[in-house]
Structures are given as structure tokens and as C-alpha cells.
């Protein structure tokens, strides 16, 4: 897949901008604060229905404007597709795919991108929520039902937490069981998808980490949850949906008293994590700064390669200011690993940071204008 054209109106610091893109490598060059990242953020938004930097749409609308419009034209093989969206300050976002009105969630299936960004270090060093988000974004692209299941699950958690708060100290509520069952069925399904994803990712991550850090290094990834003993979710034969449901059900039963006391749901995929290891040591606590970067990049690279081998084909790779974070050898190794992708968009303040093999078309950006 590749992006062939971006048109923006009142998006971030762009009053009006239009950019044609070729396949291969494009370097968006500009000093800090000129709008390089804003430009690719429009592509990320069209791909995930959310930004990789902020939540909500208000920050994406240019200061002083009430609405932002973005049009992203892309091509998959011979097929051309235009995604258009109007982000409104006080009204819901309006989306068109081709010439048809669409829902926000339909965007997730339309364009696939993988974004490498400075924030990625949080995948290794940050909170479990950062790692869950990594799985969720990727799973939404790979399993068509995932997003709907997760959305329902998150809503069921909010409903159940509200109920737990209102019944504080009184376990005799007649509807708690119903919400608990919803949590179990939707939560088990969510975990099942995530386990499948982690299993599919593992070989790609091992390979990617060796690409970036060298052949004698080994990276691992496994899914961890309070509902099961360590190792339960990393065996070769994944647990069945029924087994996951039973585990989740037992965990919720064990925590029932505590949940009523605290007013929150204490077990389920919203509290799970991804365990990352480098040479059998936990990456979060034992990796150096350089190793952490290698791991963060390998996670993105593994996601990109997993998508590439799937029915959606090459995702558009977006490297947002990452070369500045990497030493020369990691830069060269990353460049080598991604040079076969159909389209790579790179933002940088310094062209010297970008390895030679990736210096394709150069687009200069200055104060919200494309030169």
C-alpha cells in the first residue's frame, strides 16, 4: 500500500497544503516546530482513526478554525482509494471512504500504517497501557472483529465499574452477575485475540531484533495476565476460549469482595501486560538505553512485517524523527530492514541523520508550508 496524495485544510498548522507522494522513500525535512510531524499525523489519523500523539480531535484543528479537512489518496496495487474526513470542534467527525459516508471504525480497515516515533521507547519502559495499546492497534488491523469486541468490552467495564461504585459494600445486587458475565465473554474473546497475535508476532520479533541488534541476541514476547500463572499464556498450544473464560471467571470470583470495596473491576484484559525480554532478561528492568531502543524499533518492525505477510500487504511505514534517537549502526540496520517496503515516509530535522539508502525524494517544510 502507498499514499499518493495528501490534502489538508486547517489541519494542525496547515491552512492549506497539498503533497503528492511517490512510492519508495520520501524524507520530509524541516526544522523543529515547522509541521513535519503534523503532515504525517494526518496519515496516521486516517489509518487508525486516532493520532499517535494526542487523544481527541480538538488539537488537530488549526487554532482559530472550527473544522479541519483531510483527504488522503492511497493505492493498493491497481486499486485507488480516497479517504476524506472532516474533524469538527463541536460536532462528530464525518468520514468518507471512496464516495460513501463511513463510520470512524471503518477507517481502521482502509489504510494500514506502522509508525515509528520517539514515544516508542515507552513500549519498553512505559506502563502496561502503552504495550496494550500496541497490541490493540495491531490486532484491529489483523482481526476484523477485534475492535468491536474491545470497544464493547471497554464499555462493559465502564458499566460494571459504575455499578460497583453504586453498590459499595452491598454484594446483593441483582444485575452485577449480568455485567460480570459480559466481562467474561467479551474479555475472554479479547484475550484470545491478543494471545493469537502475540504468538504470530514472536518469530517476527525474534527476526527483527536480530536485524537491529545482531545475530547473537534474542528477543522474546509473551502475554501476561493476573488471571493465569506465568507461562500459562506462552505455551505452544494456546488455551481455548472456554479455558480463558474459566480463568477469568475464577479471577473475578476471587476478587469479588475487593472489587465491591474498591468499586473497580480488578481482572481482565484491561489490566494485562506484555512481557518483553532480551536474552532472557526482562527488557523493562534490565535493558540499557540502546537495547531498549532496539526493542522498541523491533516491535514496530515485527508489526510491519507481520502485516506485510498478511492479506493487507505492505503497510506504509512512517518514521517520525526516530533516526535522531539512534546511533549510526542501528540507523544503518533499520534502513536495511525496511528498504524493501513499498513506501516509507521519514521526517527529520537533519538529513545527515537519515542513512543514504533511504534518501529518496526530499520535501522541505517550513512554517506550515510545503516547498
Amino acid at each position, binding site marked *: 500500500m502507498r499514499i499518493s496524495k495528501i490534502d489538508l485544510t486547517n489541519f494542525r498548522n496547515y491552512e492549506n497544503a497539498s503533497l503528492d507522494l511517490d512510492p519508495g522513500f520520501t524524507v520530509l525535512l524541516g526544522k523543529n516546530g515547522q509541521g513535519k510531524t503534523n503532515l504525517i499525523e494526518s496519515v496516521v489519523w486516517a489509518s487508525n482513526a486516532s493520532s499517535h500523539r494526542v487523544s481527541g480531535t480538538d488539537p488537530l484543528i488549526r487554532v482559530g478554525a472550527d473544522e479541519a479537512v483531510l483527504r488522503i489518496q492511497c493505492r493498493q496495487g491497481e486499486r485507488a482509494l480516497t479517504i476524506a474526513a472532516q474533524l469538527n470542534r463541536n460536532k462528530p467527525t464525518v468520514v468518507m471512504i471512496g464516495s460513501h459516508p463511513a463510520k470512524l471504525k471503518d477507517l481502521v480497515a482502509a489504510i494500514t500504517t506502522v509508525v515509528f516515533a520517539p514515544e516508542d521507547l515507552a513500549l519498553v519502559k512505559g506502563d502496561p497501557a502503552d504495550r496494550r495499546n500496541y497490541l490493540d492497534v495491531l490486532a484491529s488491523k489483523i482481526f476484523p472483529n477485534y475492535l*468491536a469486541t474491545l470497544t*464493547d468490552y471497554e464499555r462493559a467495564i465502564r*458499566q460494571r465499574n459504575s*455499578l460497583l461504585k453504586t453498590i459499595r459494600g452491598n454484594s446483593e445486587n441483582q*444485575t452485577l452477575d*449480568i455485567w460480570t458475565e*459480559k466481562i467474561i465473554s467479551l474479555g475472554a474473546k479479547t484475550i484470545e485475540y491478543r494471545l493469537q497475535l502475540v504468538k504470530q508476532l514472536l518469530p517476527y520479533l525474534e527476526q527483527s531484533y536480530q536485524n537491529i541488534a545482531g545475530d547473537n541476541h534474542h528477543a522474546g514476547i509473551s502475554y501476561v495476565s493476573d488471571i493465569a500463572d506465568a507461562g500459562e499464556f506462552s505455551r505452544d498450544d494456546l488455551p481455548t476460549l472456554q479455558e480463558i473464560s474459566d480463568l477469568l471467571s475464577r479471577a473475578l470470583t476471587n476478587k469479588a469482595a475487593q472489587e465491591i470495596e474498591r468499586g473497580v473491576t480488578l481482572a481482565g484484559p484491561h489490566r494485562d501486560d506484555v512481557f518483553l525480554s532480551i536474552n532472557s532478561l526482562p527488557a523493562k528492568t534490565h535493558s540499557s538505553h540502546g537495547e531498549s531502543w532496539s526493542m522498541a524499533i523491533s516491535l514496530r518492525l515485527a508489526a510491519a512485517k507481520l502485516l506485510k505477510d498478511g492479506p493487507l500487504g505492505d503497510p506504509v511505514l512512517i518514521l517520525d524523527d526516530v533516526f535522531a534517537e539512534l546511533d549510526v549502526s542501528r540507523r544503518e540496520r533499520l534502513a536495511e530492514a525496511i528498504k524493501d517496503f513499498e513506501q516509507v515516509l521519514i521526517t527529520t530535522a537533519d538529513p545527515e541523520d537519515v542513512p543514504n539508502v533511504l534518501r529518496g525524494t526530499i520535501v522541505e517544510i517550513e512554517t506550515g508550508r510545503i516547498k
Partner: protein
Amino acid sequence: MYAGIVQELIDELGRLPGIGPKSAQRIAFHIVQTEGFEVSNLARVLREVKERVKFCRNCGNISEEDLCSICVDPKRDTSKICVVEEAKDVAAIERTRQYRGLYHVLGGAISPIDGIGPDQLRIKQLLERLSDTSIEEVIIATDPNLEGEATAVFLSRTLSALPIRVSRIASGLPVGGDLEYADEVTLGRAFEGRRTVND
């Protein structure tokens, strides 16, 4: 902003569901500018609708009398009660002209976020109606979303002790549509709810 009363009209119209500021403005100007626009009739209807329309004592549907036109209709099949969330769902099912039984409007769905539990819905009234032994079937037609499903589960459990058939309307593919255009969740549901055709 417009002067005084015109802006007040725009604001009032804008409070209505489905009417944004632009539409409110358009309607307000239509009322103000169009010659021969009979506004007194509209005003009368608006006032009377609030005075005359109430909720059916029996089923909770909107009605001008104590009992709604469906509850008093002798041709209706009184052995069936269809449970819906809102009065507008009654109108939707009536348009099918297939269902000839009675209704029961709950007034919403179980949603702890909005402070709605079974006690806030007309469930007690439903149980009172079901003490009438001539009722044979309750059809649960709450929305096929998270809250509607939770309400359906609650109802089916509450009613399980009674000697009444309890059913849930099916969800799945829209008629006249193409299978290929159905979204994955709906198609998945349709598969779960498939039925045998060769028996």
C-alpha cells in the same frame, strides 16, 4: 447572534434532538420570513401535545387516553407481550404489521453509567401484567447493543420462574442487502443465530 426574540427562537429550536445550530437558524428564518406561514397552528399543536399525551397505564406506550389504542384494541392477540425500550420502538414494530400482540415499554435499558437499573425501568409493572395467566409468550425486543443485551438477560432470568415462553428477537443480516457488504460483527451474529432448514 440575532436580536432578542429571533435568537431565542433559534436557541429553543436548537435544543431539539437532531437539529444543529444551522438547521435551527434555517427553521427560525422560515417561520419569520415566509408569508402565510400558519404559526398559530404549530403553536397550538405543540401546546396540546404536552397537555393531552401521556403514557399508557398498562404498557407505557404514548397515548391520549389512560389506555393506549393498542391495549384497548379487541382484535389484538392478548397472549403475547413484546418488551421494547422506548415508545418509538412500538411504532417501528407496528410498521411491520406482522405482530398483533401487545407491548410493554420499559422506558430505557439497564445502564449503570446513566444510573439506570431494573428499578428505574417498568419491570415491576411487567411482572404485574404477567400475573394474568392468559399470557403465553414474552418477546424481548430490546436493542441488540451491550445495554439492550444486558437488559434482555436480566429479563429472561427474572421471567424464568414463570410458566411463560420467553423469546428474544433475532439479530443478523438486513433483508435485501448483500452479504458481502455486511459488517463483520453483524455477519458473525447471523452465523451464531443460524437455523436448521431441513427438518
